[in-house]
Each structure stands twice: as C-alpha cells, then as structure tokens.
C-alpha cells in the first residue's frame, strides 16, 4: 500500500515549568492509504502532541518541533509556508477532537461552521455551500439537517456535536482524518455510533484515519495497524491481530493484562506498577525499565532501538534486540 504520511524521528519540545522537555522524542510513523492506524498510550505519552505536530497546530511559543521530518505524499510539512499549511489543514488532513462540547464555537450557527471550511477550500458560493453543508449533515446521520444547519451548538447533544465535527472534518474529503480520542467524552452507545460512522465514511471515501485513543477496545474494533507509545516514544508497532495475539513489549503486555476479563477468576484488576516517568526525569536507559517486570541490567543503561522482530512487528525492547538484528 502506498504511504500517505510519513513521520520520521520527530522530536517535539515543550516549555514547561520544569524547563524545556521533549514530549515527543524520536517518533516514527507511517500512515498508508485507506488504513486506520491506532495510536495507543496513556495520557501524556505524546500521542496528541504527535498529531498536533503533524497539523502544525502546536500552541504557539510553548511547543515546537525541533527535529525530524513529516511528509505528506512526499511534501515536507515542516517546510510549508503559512498559506500552504492553511490549504492543507481541513482539505488534506483534518482533525476531530476529544471534547465535542467545547470544540464548536458557541456563537456561530452549526451550518456556518461547516460552510466556513467548505467555502475556503472548495470555493463554493454561499448558497451551494449551505446545501452542501446540509448534505454533509445528512451523511453524518443527523436527522432534520435542514433545521440543524441553523441551530447553535448548545442546542445539540454531545453525540450530535461530534457528528457535526465529523461533518466539518470530512466536508472537503481529506486524505487523512486525525481523530484524537473522538469517543472518550461520549457515552458507550454513542461511542459505537460515532465509530461506525467513521468507518463507514472511511470505506466510502478511502480516507486514511489516524485514531488516537487509550481504549484498546476501540483499537480492536477499528484499526488495521497499531502504534503503542510510551513516554514520548513508539515502543511497539504491528498489525492489530498480532498486537492482541502476540504482544511483545512488556508495556503492551501490561496494557492488555489490565483489560478486565469476564472469564477471569480474580476480582481485582491488573495494573502496571509505578507511574509514567516525569518529562524532565526520563531514565537514561529504557524509559519503561523502572516499571518493567523483565528488567535486565542493560535496560537501565541503554535505551533500546525500535527494531523489526519479524513480520513487520517492531518493538523497542532489549528482550528482542538480538532477534531484531538477526532478522
């Protein structure tokens, strides 16, 4: 499959109270045409920052990409001018966010917010844009779209607002949709509806989706491939089946073990001991070493590289370093 988006050795720096820290530290990603790539990790592991780096929407003066490459169909995003970036955002890559309640501007009509993107990218007239906006609302499963188009966000439920966000994001038929925890703030039945809608649109238009989540259930349901991130780095990358069947990195194993099992005898949930290291106190060696049950002496002194352990299953762990080298 053709690679649409390639992120190479991305390092993104943030100004924090503790000084300058790298929130994303050497991330490599590839998003292929038409696939759904899951990015999984705990809060603060750098998954959202990675997506904002791709969009070049890092908070000004606080976050900055310091090195690496991001290319969209061979074009370097980091070298794009402001106007090139604007043309890319919303038409080539668009984004939906975690909080549908706050992601729409409260003082403008829903329709105007959809039409804004349509008019800017597709150069439609006001009238054409409005009928297209209504068409988009119908597509995302909103009943009575003709009246919703003239309503304000506060008149809609959370699920409906997320549908509106999807309508805005999909309006200009982008090549890539970045969905940053799109269902986290919604209740479970609505979650399933929104995920189904995303998959349906993805199948119709062949859009590639980068689905950022901490919910392994969502990953299993939706994704083709998965990237697991820990403390600003990719620790494992593979297709979704191998991830659940044959997880390699101890962190991934820990994550899967923490999922509640209906068949399990124990009435306590498993959890990974310890905490994610603070950004300004990253261990010298493997970043997961302090919490790892398979820790070896080498883990505390050197950070392993992300290597292919066979069958396109990449893992960043000393347990597999030799396998990686040999394969």
């Amino acid at each position: 499959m053709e690679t649409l988006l390639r992120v190479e050795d991305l390092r993104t720096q943030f100004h924090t109270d503790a000084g300058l820290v790298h929130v994303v530290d050497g991330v490599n990603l590839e998003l292929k045409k038409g696939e759904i790539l899951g990015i999984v990790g705990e809060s603060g592991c750098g998954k959202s920052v990675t997506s904002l780096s791709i969009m070049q929407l890092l908070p000004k003066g606080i976050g900055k990409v310091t090195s690496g490459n991001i290319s969209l169909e061979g074009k370097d995003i980091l070298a794009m001018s402001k106007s090139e970036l604007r043309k890319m955002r919303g038409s080539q890559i668009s984004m939906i966010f975690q909080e549908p309640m706050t992601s729409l501007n409260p003082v403008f009509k829903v329709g105007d917010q959809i039409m804004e993107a349509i008019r800017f990218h597709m150069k439609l007239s006001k009238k054409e844009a409005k009928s297209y906006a209504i068409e988009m609302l119908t597509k995302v499963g909103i009943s009575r779209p003709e009246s919703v188009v003239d309503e304000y966000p506060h008149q809609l439920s959370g699920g409906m607002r997320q549908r509106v966000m999807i309508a805005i994001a999909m309006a200009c038929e982008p090549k890539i949709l970045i969905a940053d925890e799109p269902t986290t703030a919604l209740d479970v039945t609505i979650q399933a509806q929104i995920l189904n809608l995303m998959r349906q649109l993805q199948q119709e238009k062949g859009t590639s989706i980068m689905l950022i989540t901490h919910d392994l259930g969502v990953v299993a349901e939706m994704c083709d491939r998965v990237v697991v991130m820990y403390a600003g780095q990719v620790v494992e990358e593979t297709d979704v089946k191998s991830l659940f069947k044959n997880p390699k990195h101890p962190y991934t194993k820990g994550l899967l073990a923490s999922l509640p099992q209906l068949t399990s005898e124990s009435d306590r949930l498993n959890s990974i001991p310890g905490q994610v290291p603070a950004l300004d106190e990253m261990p010298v060696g493997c970043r997961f070493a302090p919490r790892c049950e398979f820790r070896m002496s080498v883990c505390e002194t050197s950070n392993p590289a992300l290597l292919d352990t066979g069958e396109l299953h990449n893992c960043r762990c000393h347990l597999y370093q030799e396998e990686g080298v040999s394969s």
Partner: protein
Amino acid sequence: MFGYILRRLLYMIPGFIGIILITFVLSRVLPGDPAVMIAGEQAPPDVIAKIRVELGLDQPIYIQFVDYVKKLFQGDFGTAWHTGHTVLQDFSSRLPATVELTLASIFIAILIAIPVGIIAAVKKESILDHISRVFSLIGACVPIFWLGLMFIFLFYSKWGFFPAPMGRISDGINPPTAITGLYILDSLLSGDMIAFKDSLMHLILPAICLSTGTMAIVARMMRSSMLEVIGQDYIRTARAKGMRESKVIMKHALSNAFIPTLTLLGLQFGFLIGGAVITETIFSWPGVGGYITDSILATDYAPIQAFTLMSAIVFSIVNLIVDVLYGALDPRIRYE
C-alpha cells in the same frame, strides 16, 4: 424579548424611588440653608423666613418630599435659583454638550482599548504587551483633574496644538445649526467644515482626558478575555479547518471575547457621567457637569437631585441595552 424589556423597565421603578428618596434626604440633611444663600449672608431674619416659606422649607420634611415627588410626576424638576431658570431649561441647553463629551470618550476608549487589548493578548509577553500594560496602569491611576491640567499646560499653553480650554467652540465661530445638539454631528450634517474643525479641536482634549480610565480598564479586560478565548478548543478547531489567523482572531475569538468587555463598557458609563463633572469643570465645558458643580457650591438642591436621578436613569437604560445586546452576541442567552 419585548416582555423582558418591559419587565426590566418596571424593575427600575423601585430603584428610582430609592434614589429620589436618598438624594432628597441627603440634600436636606447636609449643612447649608438655601434661603440664606438666596438672600445673602447679611439679610435680615424676616426676609430669610419669607424666602423659606416661598420655597416651602418651613414645612415638615415629609411634606416637602411629597410635594417634590408630585412635581416630578408633572415633569417639574424645580427651579435652579442660582441661574433663575427651571432645571429642565438648564438641562436642555447643557445636556447636548455632556452627551457629546461622553459619547466621544466612549468612542475613543473603544477605538483604542479594543485593538490594544487584542494585540496585547495575541502578542502576549511581547514588547507591545508590556507597553500596553504600563500605559493601562498609568491610565487607571492618573486622576482626571491632574491629567486635564497637564493636557492644558502642554498642548495649549506650551505647544499651542489645541485652542484655549474654553467651551465647545471658539468665540468668533458660529455654532452649527442645531439638529442633534452635538456640534460635531451638526456641523457635519450641515456641511459647516469650519465649525466642525473648531469644535473637534475643542472636544479632543477633554474627551481623551475623560476616556483614559475607561480605556485602561477596557484594554485590560479585552486582553484577559481574549487570552481565555484563544485557549479554547473551538479556536483550535477553526485553525484546523485552515482558517486564516486573522479570521481566527477577529471572527472566532473576538465574537466570544467581546461579551465580557461589553458588560464592562456598560458599567463604565456610570463612571464617565461622574468623570464628566470634573472634566467639564477643568475645560470650562458648558455641559451639565459644570452646572452641577456650581449647584453644589450654591447649595442648589433641585438641579443636584435632578442630575442624580438622570444619571441613574441613563445608567439603568444603558445597562438594559447591554443586556439586550448580549442576546444578540451570544445565542446561549435568550430572554423570554
């Protein structure tokens, strides 16, 4: 909506009754006898007593109050003895000057404070932000009387940029035909450019002087509400749609950030009416403010009471307008 406005207008009535009562009682309780002021310090006691009877001051205070309220309802605000005219006559000749000054100040404050607040927020912690902070601090601290005197000293006596601080228009120039009573507007409407230029030059210094406090506070308010809005998720959404940064700020952010600033502008109106009293005195501006200062010095009750009531009415109505505007700016606010 209409019902809401009507209800708000009705709610104002108890407030106005309270104000009438307080100003009436205060002006009676304060030392100083108008009869003595009218007749003169040396007047014989029987003359003073006669004047007291004429003014109704010999009556018990509650009867004086009832008389006063009765007359108010007939549109009679009493007579200002220090000018010899009825208060209504004095007001109608002086009010346009005060309205012109106040509107000009609000206009200047909005014109400068809103952009300054936006720039300070967008370029947070830049040199522009720091400059605006220093000027806001100065603007909020410097008293009007000092600033007014400095303006006159520098821009009139020292450098002569502006005409003498005497009134609304130079002596040799005819005021424009009265249409609205506002010289600037009237001279424009009647195409009298000489009067326009002269009255504008007379207006600038007092208007800036009166607007500084409001300008400083509005700029700070605009900055802080803008900063809050810029951090909101929907601003990120607008950027993610590919919107131009100027549109993100001027459309998406400003339409939200302006709402708290509007509240402040409404409240500042009261401050401006009060500030006009001082400014008009310094610049010999022939408005209601100077007239009220004279009335206070002359223990002339009627105009003081009328002015207080008028200020309260103007303030209440301006704030009602502000509340109605909320509904227009923020669709989440609806009045039934």
